[in-house]
Structure formats: C-alpha cells, structure tokens
C-alpha cells in the first residue's frame, strides 16, 4: 500500500463521478489530437506528392480542380488541351522540364494515366517485377492497385471509359501488365501507368465513333500518326521552371494570353488549407473548451469527494501522515485521471485516423497510415497535466489546511 495506490483505489471506488470528467477529457484531447493528426497527415501527403511541380497547365476551369486532378489524381480533370499548344509552352525558355499526362480510362476505379516515362522518375517509381513498357497497351501498375485488385504480371486489364468504375468498357481497351511498381508512398501507388500513345490509340477509335458524322474531324483522325498538325490532346502538363522567379510571371502570361489555364500547386494547396483550416480552428476551440469543462468537472468532483471523505482524511492524518502526503494524494488522484484521459484520448484519435483513412481509401484511394506522436500532442500532455494540477490545487490546499481536531470533534 502506498499513496499512489490509494489514489487509484479512491478513483475506482467512485467510478461514476470520475468517469464523467474522464470522458470529457478523452473527448477534448481526442478531438484535438485527431485534428492535428489528420491535418499533418494530409499536409504531408500533399507536400510529398508535390515533388517540386511548379506549375500545372491544363484546360480552363477551376485551378484547384486542375491541381487536384493532375497532381493528386483525386478530382475530375478540367478538360483536355491540344498537344500542339502544350508543346509551345514546354518549349518556352523559362520551362526547365515538363511532363505531359493524359487520362481517359480506369480499371475498376483506378485511373489509367498515359504519361511520359519522366512521370515515373518524378515519383521515384521503381519496378519491382517485370519491365518498363515498350509498346502501346503495356502498363505498369502501382502497388496499391495490384495489392487491392490482386493483379499479377502478365494479366490483361480491360479498361472502362471515364475515371469512375461505371463507364462503358472499350472492347479494344485491353492492357497488358508488364511491370509492377514498388510502393513509393506517392500518387503513383494508386495509378496504372502507360504510354501516352496507348491512351491516344484507344480514344482515337473511340472519338472516331463519337464524331462519326462530324466531317471536319474525320480526315484528321485517319492520318493521325503521320500527321504533323494532329489534333491529339493531353489532359495536363506538369512543369518545373528553370528559375523559381518564373513562378510569378509565367502562369499569368499563360492565363492571359492563351486559352489554357496555368495553376500553381503550392499556392492552390495553401488556399485549400486556409479554407478548411478555418473549420479545424473552430473545432479545436470547441475541443479546448471541452478540456476546460473537464477540468471544472474534475475540480467539483474532487471538491465534493473531499467533503465526503473528510473523516477519512482526518483518520489518515491521525495515523501519522503529514499534510503534505495527504495533499499529494489528492493531486495524484487528479493526475491519474487526466493522464489516463490523455492516453485514452490519443487512442481515440488513432482509431479515428484509422477510420477516416479507411473511408478515404475507399473513396479516393488515398491512405494515411503513419501514427507517430506529434509535437503538438506533447503539448496536449502538458495541458492535461496542467489541468490535473490546477483542478486539484484548491482541494489539495483545503486538505493541507484541514483542522483534523475540529473534524473529529464534530463527528
């Protein structure tokens, strides 16, 4: 038996009154920690996938949508742009390097991206099994795709049109898996990547069907491969500048002088975070309020229990315990509650993150699975300890100043 054990026994002796303060604290700490975790994980994931892309060029529309679709692969593209126009931009002297990507199809919900091979290098994709594509209709498959769909080397994938699962399927859209990529913790994990030519080839026939009666296009389609001024299209182009200074001027030039849209990912992402940062802030104020209320409830709890237990306290003093030991016991009781509240709160947030990431993985094939303790969470621990000490301070002082003789004489 010791003072610490006694504190714990006291807590368990009144489980109901202790559990309300505990539940409030778990809720408060849990919400804040969950917000912090999600915020950090999403930000990390977003930054990680940015890979120094300075600018994205695509069809006119929402710049955020352009970024989300072509950098993060989570929204629909704004439309297509002509390859010729894109070439003009990539030949500009300010452009350091450019990668053209194009969409068209999906395989069971996973996007098939036609891209130059530089695209895989950008995300440091490494082939785990098989080889790079050499011919049209050969694909490399990202790690999450083959894990989830159990795709093996040599499998044939019949694609569907569009980016969602419920598209019409192309009879001719049969891709052959020639390589599997190692997990890279980037967007390519959830993509199926092929040469731009494959996507053009499929949609050539496809577009052809659609535009059968539009005479103006017919001629061009037939000679597509040899034609100099073809009407091939791409979805977007990822650009790195030669000098970071260009980021100010070049996107504006494109937006003003061409019918293309240029968007700067870092700018759009910080705008996005500002938007939902406001919600996060409001919610965390609410959570801090809950923590403060839990402190009050703890205080009331201890204060009442001091009154109920005054004879008990007097007895412990007459047994020879010092005032200091008795006050320590009260503070211990409070700290045991707040620290276990903190630990349960962290567990709560971890389950929350796991839940949210399982939801996200289903809808947008993103995955957030890192559960390290953030610096801000150490602050939360500090806050919990502080709440524990502050709310037990007055009861502890009362016990310290308690007149045992008077209490015993009144009995």
């Amino acid at each position, binding site marked *: *038996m010791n003072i610490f054990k*006694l504190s714990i026994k006291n807590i368990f002796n009144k489980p109901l009154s202790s559990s309300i303060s505990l539940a409030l604290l778990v809720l408060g700490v849990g919400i804040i920690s969950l917000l912090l975790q999600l915020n950090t994980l999403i930000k990390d994931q977003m930054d990680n996938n940015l890979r120094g892309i300075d600018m994205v060029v695509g069809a006119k529309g929402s710049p955020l949508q352009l970024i989300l679709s072509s950098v993060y692969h989570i929204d629909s593209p704004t439309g297509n742009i002509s390859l010729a126009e894109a070439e003009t931009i990539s030949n500009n002297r300010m452009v350091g390097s450019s990668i053209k990507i194009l969409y068209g199809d999906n395989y069971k919900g996973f996007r098939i991206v036609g891209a130059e091979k530089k695209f895989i290098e950008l995300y440091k994709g490494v082939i785990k099994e098989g080889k790079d594509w050499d011919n049209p209709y050969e694909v490399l498959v990202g790690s999450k795709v083959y894990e989830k769909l159990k795709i093996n080397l040599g499998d044939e994938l019949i694609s569907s049109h569009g980016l969602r699962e419920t598209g019409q399927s192309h009879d001719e859209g049969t891709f052959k898996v020639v390589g599997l990529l190692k997990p890279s913790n980037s967007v390519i994990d959830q993509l199926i990547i092929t040469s731009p030519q494959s996507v053009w080839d499929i949609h050539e026939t496809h577009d052809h069907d659609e535009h059968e009666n539009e005479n103006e296009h017919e001629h061009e389609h037939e000679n597509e491969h040899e034609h100099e001024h073809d009407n091939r299209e791409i979805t977007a182009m990822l650009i790195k500048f030669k000098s970071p200074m260009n980021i100010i001027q070049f996107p504006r030039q494109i937006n003003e002088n061409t019918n293309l849209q240029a968007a700067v990912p870092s700018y759009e992402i910080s705008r996005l975070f500002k938007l939902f940062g406001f919600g996060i802030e409001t919610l965390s104020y609410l959570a801090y309020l809950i923590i403060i209320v839990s402190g009050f409830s703890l205080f009331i709890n201890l204060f009442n229990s001091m009154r109920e237990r005054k004879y*008990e306290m007097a*007895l*412990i003093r007459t*047994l020879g315990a010092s005032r200091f030991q008795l006050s320590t016991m009260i503070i211990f009781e409070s700290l045991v509650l707040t620290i276990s509240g903190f630990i349960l709160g962290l567990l709560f947030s971890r389950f929350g993150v796991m839940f949210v990431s399982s939801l996200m993985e289903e809808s947008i094939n993103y995955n957030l699975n890192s559960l390290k303790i953030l610096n801000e969470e150490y602050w939360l621990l500090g806050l919990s300890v502080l709440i524990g000490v502050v709310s037990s301070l007055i009861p502890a002082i009362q016990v310290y100043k308690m007149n045992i*003789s008077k209490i015993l*004489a009144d009995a």
Partner: protein
Amino acid sequence: MLKTKEVEFNYDNQMFFKFQNIDLNSNENLLIIGESGVGKTTLMHLLAGLLKSNSGSIKLFDKELNQMSSYQLDSFRKNNIGIVFQRPHFVNSLTVKENLQLAQYIANKNDNTRIESILKNLNIFEKSNKKTNQLSQGEKQRVSIALAIVNSPKLILADEPTSSLDDNNCSKVIKLLKKQATDFGAQLIVITHDSRLKKHFKKSIEL
C-alpha cells in the same frame, strides 16, 4: 511517562479549558472521566498532538509536545500513539486489510504477519478482504482497535469507546481494549463520560 502541567486551551477566545495536572507512570492505564462539555475530546486531541495547547506543558515519553512542529507531531504520533475514536473511521475505498496496510505504510512499516495476528486476535481475520462499509458495528469497532494498535504504539488513546453500548458490550469492549494493550505492550488511556468503566481502572481522574 505522561506528565501535564497547567495545560490551558481556548477555542477562538470563546471556550476556555484549564485542565488539571496528570502524572502517569509507565505500565499504568488511566481513565479520564468527565461530563459533556468539560473538554474531554479537547484533552484527548492535546495528548495526541492533534491540537496544541495555549500554555502549560505536556510531556509524553519525555518529549515536550508543545515544542514540536506540526510535522514532528505527525511523526511522533505515528511512532507512539494509536487512537480509537468514538465513531470508527476508515478509508472506505480500501478493505480491512488494506486499511491496516495503509497505516503501516504511513509509519514506514510493512508487516503482513502482524496484521494477520492482530486480526486473528480480534476475531475478525475472516473479514480481511471486506470493504469496511460491509462490516457490522461491532466489527467496525474491532477494526478501529486494530488500526490503533497495528503500528505497535506505546500509548493507546480511546475516546468514548463504550458510550453507545449496552452494559454487556461495554464491559466486553473495555476488556478487549485492555487485553490488546497488554498483549501488544501498550499503555491505555480512556477518555469517557461513561461511569461504568470506573471499576475496570485502578487509576482514574475526573475533569
């Protein structure tokens, strides 16, 4: 062993007590008897070091209580004095055995065999693992005696141990207290208004 001289005490300048001198030798038990309101509990708290007198001297085991700090008094009490209260008090979250272990912990002791032998001696060993609020009145009183003697005090102070008991139980309890004091080598001072106890003590003073 105990020598008091001109002990005076007043509560907030309203109630004023002046106690007669006590001189008690080693191996003697003492009955202090008095009507309600003459300051019996006050005297007991003074002897136990729970209160400090305003003037006079209380010398217990050759130590002057009035010169000790509150911390020294706590320490003196846990090493020398066991108290049996009029109404038994326990730590309710603990079992009988744990209450006794707590008392030992406070006195920096740890001796489960002593706890067992005390509980057996008081015939409540089978209640060791019961919470104290599951005990009957008689059992509670015996546990409170166990609490008073668990740290082998040299002096047991009992405040009205028999006031609410019938004649039969009254004599049982006082015999039990005297036996425990003898068995564990302690002196006993009982403070009461209960004149039935007079016949059990050779030495008594009236307040």
